[in-house]
Structure formats: structure tokens, C-alpha cells
């Protein structure tokens, strides 16, 4: 049947492959695993680059601030020297510092009012430095190499001028390190991506492989094969496919049962009819005898027709096509009318039919099929009841169950429960399990008329309504209960309940 409602709604991805000859180029790689790994690699590379750029930016910033702060304090210190001892003291201080500067990164220049160099390690006044009290970043030539440096110039009294600077080749070193890191990162990411691609592709293949193996096993006829659930995301597909296979299996089983049944249960009455006619043909001595034989043969044929109709109807219901005939059904009316119809037969058989119903909400369903199901149950109950006993036709709404497991009457009823109880011989547990099978008849029922299809039909009608059919021993007698859900959610709830029941 179309269990389409049960599936969670999923967004449908529409993949439009590039038309051959179309303008838009098609992405050449088809393997999902490789694409996945490629995408993953590119994403990783971008994020690593962004991350390292941030480190580069913030550390050069920090370095700069540090250098500037150093220059400023150094300049203040030197200016103090000027106030104590003028140019000679300042020149000595500069020479001292240069001598003590092991890193060889300090740069100084002191000039007099004519621009002559008095002290420092800069060969002359850099042309670029025009303004005082302003930081300049220049590339200068030292010994044999060029290097970036930060400078600041200060005016001293009497036209003397001072430049304090700092070699910042450390920054260059840092940038080299970071560039190298980026390159290594890229190489490693590439390796990881390739490795990842292989692993992911393998994973994908394994996931899909399990489904494909099962599908091909089923295609070649082994319907009992199922996809093993791994707890991964493909379980959603796997479960759906498994449910589908269960259903196919049930349908196939049904077909098999029916063909067996046709072979067995239809042959018997056909043989009987044939024998009777044949015997009458050869040995009937009077028209009356002949008539009786023909009459019985017609009875047998009618019985066969009945079985055919029931089988076809069950098959039709199970195919689920009848859901198109669903309307809102007034169960109160249906039950009252049914009870009225059967009350007379019950009384005729010396039984009492007790109708016990609460007001029921309308149900979306197939009225005729529900009538038929109920008629079958009542027929059965009447057939198996001992004289002077009571039949009970009971119906009541079933309250919703909140997720906590407590009844939630504020949500309205979840469904409707209809039960027929008799005080007959009942069924033993083994028979109850098999009762809804086609053509199944309990040993004790062999001598009563019937085809063994009544409950199969009830079962089919119940399934059509996403309901549940339960047989329980009522001591004495048998109680047959139909649970019919009212809403989609209730349907699903009942299904999950029946699934857990099935797995225990």
C-alpha cells in the first residue's frame, strides 16, 4: 500500500545535469567521495589561510607598536642627556648604546645645525625624512644587505637634530616563517584531502554497497535479505528500504498463501461438485435424485464463488487502492445500524446482543469496508456462541497519549476502539497468532461452515485504515478488538507501537 504518508517530508534536491552542448560547463568529477574531499580540502585551505593571515596581521601590528614604543622611550632618554650635557654627552651616549647593542638593530644619527654627522651609525640624513616627530618606515642599506627600518626624527635646541631608528628585519623573518607555514599547510591539506577523499569514497561505497547488495539479493529472489542498520545517516534510507521490503515480502507471502489456498481450499469444493454431478450422471435413477445432486453442486459452486469474491476483495483492499473511496464515516450510526441488523439473528440463535458505545468522533474511512469488517466479526461471534450467552459490541474513543506516556485528553481522541466479544469456546494462543491468516480455521471450528477468510478480510480492512486488529482470550470466549486511528499522528504512533511489538 502507499505508506507514503508515514515518511518524514524531505526536501527534494533537484539536480539539473548540464545539457549536452549547453553553455554551462559540467563539473567533470562524478565521484561523490572525491567531490566531498575536494570541497573539504578547499574549505580547509581557505580557513587555514585566513587564520594565518590574522596571525600575521596581529603579530606585525604588535611588533610595530613595540618598536615605536622603544624608539619613543629611547629618544626621550637621549633628549634628557642633551639637557644635562649638550651635544657631547648625547654623542657619547649614542656611541655607548651602539657598542652595547648586541642585536645590532639600533640606528641613530645626530647632526649639527649644518647637517654634519656628529654621532650614530647612519651614514647621512635620509632624504625621505622631512618632518619631525613622525614615524617613517624606510628600506635602508646596511653593510651588504637592505632591510626595513622604522625611524623618527627629533629637533634639538640650536639646530641640532636627532634620528632614532630600529631595524625591523625580525618582521621579515616572521613573514618568511608564516609563508613557509602556509606552504606546508597547503601540502599537508592536499595530502589529507586526497587521503580523506579515498576514505570518504570508501565509506560512501560501503554505505551504498550494503543497500545495493540487499537490493540485488532481493532482485535475484532472496526476499528475506535486509540492510543492516549501522547507526549512520544512511539508516534513514535503509529503514525505508527495509520497510518497503517487508511490505513486498508480506504481499508476496499473501500471493503465495493465496495460491496455496486456491490449490487446496478451492479444489476441495470443486472436486465435491464434480463428483456429485458425475455420480448423478451415472447412477441417478429418478429426476428427483438428479435434481438433488445438481442442487448440491450449485451450492458448492456458490461457495467457491464466495471464496473467490472474498479473496479478490482482500487482495484489492490490501493493494490499498480503496483509500480513494474514503469519506468521513459516522461510526455511531454505523454501529447502531449494524447492531440492529444482527440483533435479530443473535436473538434467533438464542443470544443477547449487548451494544455498549460511547459517542464516537467521525472517522476518515471506507464505510462499506468497515460495515463488512464488522459484519464478519458479528457473524463469527454468533456462529461460535453457545446458546443463551451474551455478545458484546463495544465502542469507545481512545484518548491521545502524550509523549510522556500519560493520557492527554486535551489533544482529543487518538482513535476509536471497537470490540466484539463472545462467550464461545475462544481460541488458544497458538490459534490466535494464526487467526488472521487466509484460510486458517481453528481445529475446533472445522465443523462449522465458513471459509476461513472472515478475519483475513477484517485484518485487511484494519490495515487499510492503519489500524490494529487484536484477538484476546476473554475467559470465556474471544474478544476481537479493532483500533482505528483518527489522525495521521495517531497512525504513526500506532505504527511505531506495532513495530516495537513486532520486534519484541
Amino acid at each position: 500500500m502507499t505508506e507514503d504518508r508515514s515518511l518524514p517530508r524531505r526536501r527534494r534536491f533537484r539536480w539539473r545535469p548540464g545539457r549536452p552542448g549547453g553553455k554551462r560547463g559540467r563539473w567533470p568529477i562524478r565521484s561523490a567521495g572525491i567531490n566531498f574531499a575536494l570541497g573539504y580540502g578547499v574549505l580547509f585551505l581557505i580557513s587555514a589561510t585566513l587564520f594565518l593571515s590574522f596571525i600575521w596581521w596581529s603579530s606585525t601590528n604588535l611588533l610595530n607598536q613595540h618598536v615605536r614604543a622603544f624608539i619613543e622611550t629611547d629618544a626621550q632618554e637621549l633628549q634628557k642627556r642633551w639637557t644635562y650635557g649638550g651635544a657631547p654627552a648625547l654623542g657619547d651616549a649614542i656611541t655607548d648604546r651602539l657598542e652595547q647593542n648586541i642585536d645590532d638593530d639600533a640606528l641613530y644619527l645626530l647632526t649639527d645645525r649644518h647637517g654634519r654627522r656628529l654621532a650614530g651609525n647612519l651614514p647621512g640624513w635620509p632624504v625621505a625624512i622631512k618632518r619631525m616627530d613622525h614615524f617613517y618606515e624606510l628600506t635602508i642599506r646596511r653593510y651588504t644587505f637592505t632591510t626595513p627600518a622604522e625611524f623618527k626624527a627629533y629637533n634639538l635646541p640650536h639646530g641640532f637634530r636627532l634620528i632614532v631608528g630600529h631595524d625591523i628585519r625580525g618582521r621579515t623573518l616572521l613573514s618568511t616563517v608564516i609563508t613557509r607555514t602556509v606552504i606546508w599547510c597547503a601540502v599537508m591539506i592536499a595530502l589529507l584531502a586526497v587521503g580523506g577523499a579515498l576514505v570518504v569514497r570508501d565509506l560512501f561505497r560501503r554505505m551504498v554497497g550494503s543497500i545495493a547488495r540487499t537490493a540485488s539479493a532481493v532482485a535475484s529472489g532472496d526476499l528475506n535479505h535486509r540492510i543492516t542498520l549501522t547507526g549512520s545517516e544512511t539508516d534513514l534510507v535503509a529503514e525505508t528500504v527495509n520497510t518497503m521490503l517487508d511490505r513486498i515480502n508480506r504481499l508476496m507471502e499473501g500471493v503465495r498463501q493465496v495460491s496455496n489456498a486456491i490449490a487446496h481450499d478451492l479444489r476441495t469444493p470443486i472436486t465435491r461438485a464434480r463428483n456429485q454431478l458425475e455420480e448423478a450422471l451415472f447412477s441417478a435413477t429418478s429426476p428427483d435424485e438428479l435434481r438433488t445432486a445438481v442442487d448440491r453442486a450449485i451450492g458448492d459452486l456458490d461457495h467457491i464463488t464466495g471464496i473467490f469474491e472474498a479473496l479478490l476483495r482482500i487482495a484489492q483492499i490490501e493493494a490499498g487502492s480503496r483509500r480513494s473511496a474514503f469519506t468521513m464515516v459516522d461510526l455511531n450510526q454505523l454501529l447502531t445500524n449494524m447492531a440492529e441488523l444482527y440483533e435479530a439473528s443473535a436473538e434467533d440463535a438464542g443470544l443477547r446482543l449487548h451494544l455498549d458505545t460511547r459517542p464516537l468522533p467521525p472517522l476518515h474511512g471506507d464505510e462499506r469496508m468497515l460495515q463488512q469488517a464488522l459484519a464478519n466479526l458479528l457473524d463469527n461471534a454468533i456462529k461460535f456462541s453457545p446458546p443463551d450467552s451474551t455478545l458484546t459490541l463495544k465502542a469507545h474513543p481512545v484518548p491521545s497519549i502524550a509523549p510522556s506516556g500519560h493520557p492527554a485528553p486535551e489533544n482529543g481522541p487518538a482513535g476509536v476502539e471497537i470490540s466484539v466479544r463472545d462467550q464461545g469456546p475462544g481460541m488458544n494462543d497458538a490459534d490466535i497468532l494464526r487467526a488472521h491468516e487466509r484460510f486458517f480455521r481453528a481445529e475446533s471450528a472445522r465443523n462449522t461452515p465458513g471459509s476461513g477468510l472472515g478475519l483475513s478480510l477484517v485484518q485487511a480492512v484494519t490495515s487499510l485504515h492503519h489500524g490494529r486488529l487484536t484477538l484476546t482470550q476473554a475467559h470465556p470466549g474471544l474478544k476481537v478488538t479493532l483500533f482505528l486511528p483518527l489522525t495521521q499522528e495517531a497512525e504513526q504512533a500506532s505504527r511505531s507501537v506495532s513495530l516495537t511489538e513486532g520486534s519484541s
Partner: protein
Amino acid sequence: MRILLVEDDPTVRSFVLKGLKEAGHNVDQADNGKDGLYLAIGEKYDIIILDRMLPGGIDGLNILETLRGQKNNTPVLLLSALSEVDDRVDGLRAGGDDYVTKPFAFSELLARVEALGRRGHNDSAPETSLTVGDLSLDLLSREVRRGGQKIDLQPREFRLLEFLVRHAGQVVTRTMLLEKVWDYHFDPQTNVIDVHVSRLRQKVDKPFETAIIHTVRNAGYILRPTQD
């Protein structure tokens, strides 16, 4: 009654033809859709019995639709091997008046044919009372009297009796009663209808000297007015 029978299977056709003739009807026959349609349009019949599946491109439903399209309201009984409920609904929706599934008992077919033929006559004004012999039904007050004596009936019993009275002198089958009085379309395993009829008899026949509801073996029931 003048009846047209359109049926392609020769065995079924001759079987039905023989039975209808024995019951005193005047029957024309056709074994394909084309001839059937020609006769149905050209002649005047009281009832048309149509097989749904016919050779020759024109099937029973086509004939039926063409007839109804021409405002021809001759009662039509459809005969079919398609027993699915939906097929029955399709047939009735197309304008069919009744539907009999193959295989059928001839008594069932005859009863339905005669019920349809009768219906064709008194479709005129709505009656307020029905009288058969010494039995009278007041359809408005739902009162039943027989020989002047009032009989108390349950609503369903009243409908059952009303149906029998409307078809007085005709055989009505159990299936017909289940369909027309209860509006049920299933096959009960037990004798539900017999029990209801026997209850009705308790009230309508038992207190009186003569019975008017009779059982017809292998067919159903008939309400026959007492001769007085």
C-alpha cells in the same frame, strides 16, 4: 415486458433468454455492442440487460452513456464479471439502475429485472399510501393496518414491509433486501435477512388466518395479496 438482452457469451445469453421467456417476457437479443446500441436506440423496451464487457469496440458502459445522453430513461441492468465495489459504483454512476455480478443465480436476475420493470411504471406522483389486498400502509403516519387491525412495526420493519409491498407479486431476493432496505453491500454469512423477515411475519401474518409473505425456495420472498 419487452426486454433487450445484450450479452456476448452464448451460454449465458441462451440461459438468460430461456429463463426470461419462460417467465413470460418478450426478449430481443444482441451479441455485440454495435447491434445492441442499434436496437436500444431504435426500439422501445421496458428493460435493457447489458453486459459490461462486449466485443466490437462498444462496451456496455458506452451503450448506457449514449442512451442517457439521448434522454432515454429505459431502466438498465448491468451484468458484469467485475465485482469490485468501484466497478459497481462506476456502472451506477453512468446511469445504470442495477448491477448483477457474474456468476449469478437466475432467480436473482429475474427478481431484479421484474423489480426494475415495475419501478419504471409508477415513477409518477409520490404516493402517500400503499394498499395490497387487506394490507394498507400509510407512508406519512407510518401506520400499518391489515383487515382494519393496526399492526405496530419498528421503523426498519416498516421499511422492509414497504419494500415487499412495493414489489407485491414479485420475488425479492435476500441480497436485494440487504441492498435496498439496509443499504448494505456485503455478503452476510449468517441468515440475517431471514431472521428479520421472520420477525415481520410474526407481526403481519401470524395473527391472521392467511399468510401474505411467502418464501420462494432458492430465491427469496414474495408478498402475495390474499384473494378475497
